[in-house]
């Protein structure tokens, strides 16, 4: 076995093997949990290894089953994929550990761990595959796992949220599948690197432009881009915290990743048209998300709308289609995954302390739980883009990139949305933490035992430290994001890894 084959396949095989193991151990709760933790840790280890390998080689690929590209399915990792796998593995571990303290035993018995690992497998598969149809398969893996995770437990709200989630995402999958078929009929290949080569030679055309817009719709539904985002805020607040945290961190970002891949590697024949469409969508996504958040009254609903508005910034970086813009988008994705996952976990802790996350029913937490209040401020202010936290650098990078190409309007929108984000975060802050609670009736803290305190606060503290570390020392991530952007704009490494020298 060679190391490239191992390191590219293990991010899918480890979650799959863990999922099988947890299913086999469903009658033994402790053993199931041990297997789960081992799986999360192992995945993180492999993800770090993958990043090191990719940093040395630029891009690595493996032809699954030994069938060469473009006929077989290729797994390929460039810097962006490796970074995405690493950050999703880290979120898997953090949210996984958090979930051990808050889940009901029935939920664990009915396959929560198995589905969680299947979800991670789907996410990693999407980041690593080099084949468009295979990407569709990984999307379906994610969709099936996440649908059951949303509805597991079968409460009324969960089923309602799950149904909306399922319907709109299935619609997205259908459009995705149809456009994959159209694309295949036009180009005769679905290997993304090969598509790049073929379209480079043949150029675009109206039909291919139509296909690119169809794929934009399909990925746009997954990424929750305006006007296709309504499934997200109606479903993300229904399942347990651990589930909505991993959804919030990873699922929409897989859609953004697919958008970035499609519109840097495949559909670059009419950048003036496709990418200005993307820029419009980015601005509208930012604005509609942040305005939607203003009228919401519960922590998780506010945060859900903010996912939508933040997606706008990432799409904006892609739409600018410059080195600085793409680097900003990559930086933004990584920052956002860490911060948003953390905010959902903190929302869960508020609910765990007070028994509710409705802002009208909590209050005075700054005196009752000062540590939680401090922990909220770090990702909360980072999301709004206050220096020196990670969000400041992320916003700075995309807005600076937009000013470089004289895109004044989108820069102004981005700045204004940042301000409104700060407003939302301050609303949570003042309602949940700052607001005095004179009658002491709204929120009576429930005492937690030591184990659940460690498992609950540990991941939150770790993610907050990551946010601070990125904020104080942004150079590492910025360098990596810039190197990813170079690879996205000039995909020579990617093409060489997938196709070898012969086909280029």
């Amino acid at each position, binding site marked *: *076995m060679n190391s490239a*084959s*191992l390191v590219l*396949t293990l991010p899918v*095989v480890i979650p*799959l*093997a863990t999922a*099988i193991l947890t*299913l*086999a151990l*469903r009658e033994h709760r402790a053993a199931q949990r041990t297997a789960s933790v081992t799986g999360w840790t192992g995945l993180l280890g492999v993800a770090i290894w993958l990043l090191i390998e990719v940093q040395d080689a630029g891009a690595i690929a*493996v*032809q*699954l*089953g*030994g069938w060469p590209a473009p006929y077989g399915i290729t797994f390929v990792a460039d810097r962006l994929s490796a970074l995405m796998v690493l950050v999703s593995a880290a979120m898997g571990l953090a949210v996984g550990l958090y979930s051990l303290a808050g889940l009901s035993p029935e939920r664990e018995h009915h396959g929560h761990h198995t589905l969680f690992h299947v979800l991670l497998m789907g996410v990693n598969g999407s980041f690593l595959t080099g084949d468009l149809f295979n990407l569709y398969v990984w999307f379906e893996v994610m969709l099936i796992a996440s649908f059951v995770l949303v509805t597991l437990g079968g409460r009324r709200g969960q089923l309602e949220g799950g149904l909306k989630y399922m319907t709109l995402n299935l619609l997205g999958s259908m459009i995705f599948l149809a456009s994959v078929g159209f694309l295949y009929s036009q180009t005769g290949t679905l290997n993304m690197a090969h598509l790049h080569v073929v379209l480079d030679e043949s150029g675009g055309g109206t039909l291919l432009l139509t296909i690119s817009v169809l794929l934009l719709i399909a990925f746009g539904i997954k990424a929750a881009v305006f006007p296709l985002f309504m499934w997200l805020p109606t479903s993300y607040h229904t399942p347990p915290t651990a589930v909505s945290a991993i959804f919030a961190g990873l699922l929409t970002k897989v859609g953004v990743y697919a958008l970035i891949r499609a519109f840097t590697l495949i559909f670059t024949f009419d950048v003036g048209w496709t990418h200005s469409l993307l820029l419009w969508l980015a601005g509208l996504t930012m604005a509609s998300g942040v305005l939607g958040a203003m009228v919401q009254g519960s922590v998780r609903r506010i945060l859900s709308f903010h996912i939508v508005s933040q997606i706008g910034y990432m799409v904006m970086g892609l739409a600018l289609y410059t080195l600085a813009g793409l680097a900003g988008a990559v930086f933004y994705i990584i920052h956002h995954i860490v911060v948003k996952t953390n905010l959902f976990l903190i929302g869960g802790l508020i609910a765990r302390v007070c028994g509710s996350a409705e802002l009208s029913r909590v209050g005075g937490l700054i005196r009752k739980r000062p540590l939680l209040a401090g922990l909220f401020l770090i990702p909360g202010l980072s999301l709004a883009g206050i220096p020196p936290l990670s969000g400041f650098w992320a916003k700075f990078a995309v807005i600076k990139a937009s000013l470089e190409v004289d895109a004044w309007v989108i820069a102004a929108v981005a700045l204004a949305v940042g301000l409104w984000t700060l407003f939302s975060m301050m609303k949570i802050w003042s309602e949940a933490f700052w607001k005095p609670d004179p009658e002491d009736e709204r929120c009576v803290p429930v005492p937690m035992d030591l184990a659940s305190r460690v498992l609950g606060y540990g991941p939150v503290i770790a993610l907050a430290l990551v946010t601070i570390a990125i904020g104080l020392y942004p150079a590492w991530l910025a360098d990596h994001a810039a190197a990813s952007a170079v690879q996205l704009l000039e995909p020579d490494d990617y093409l060489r890894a997938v196709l070898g020298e012969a086909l280029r």
Partner: protein
Amino acid sequence: MRSLILQVMTRGLTPLLLLFSVYLLLRGHNSPGGGFAGGLIASSVLVLFALVFGVQETRKALRVSPLSLLVSGLAIAVLSGLVGWFEGGDFLQAWWYGREVEIIHHFGTPLLFDLGVYLTVLGAMLTMVLTLIEEA
């Protein structure tokens, strides 16, 4: 279903059809058939058995729970992929052993993978259908 004709027919047909499903499984990697088709036929036979003799009888006849079938099927499929690594190739790469025989053609990891698919399909179908019959 208390029908004498159906009961006698099912008793006779069950082993034959199960044999046919195994036949499809064994030839599937080289000819029409395969683990998925075989698994579906096997599960439809056992669903017929359950409709005629009841869910309890079927579970007793199966000896193992459908979910365990599913788990072992998935595990076998993953293991068949690992063989490629240990033989020095890529994950899921096909490796063949021994010489050609009737029906099966060649022994190799694709057959092992098909066996995994067969058990997974059988386990999943039975888990769903038996639960539905029980609840009806």
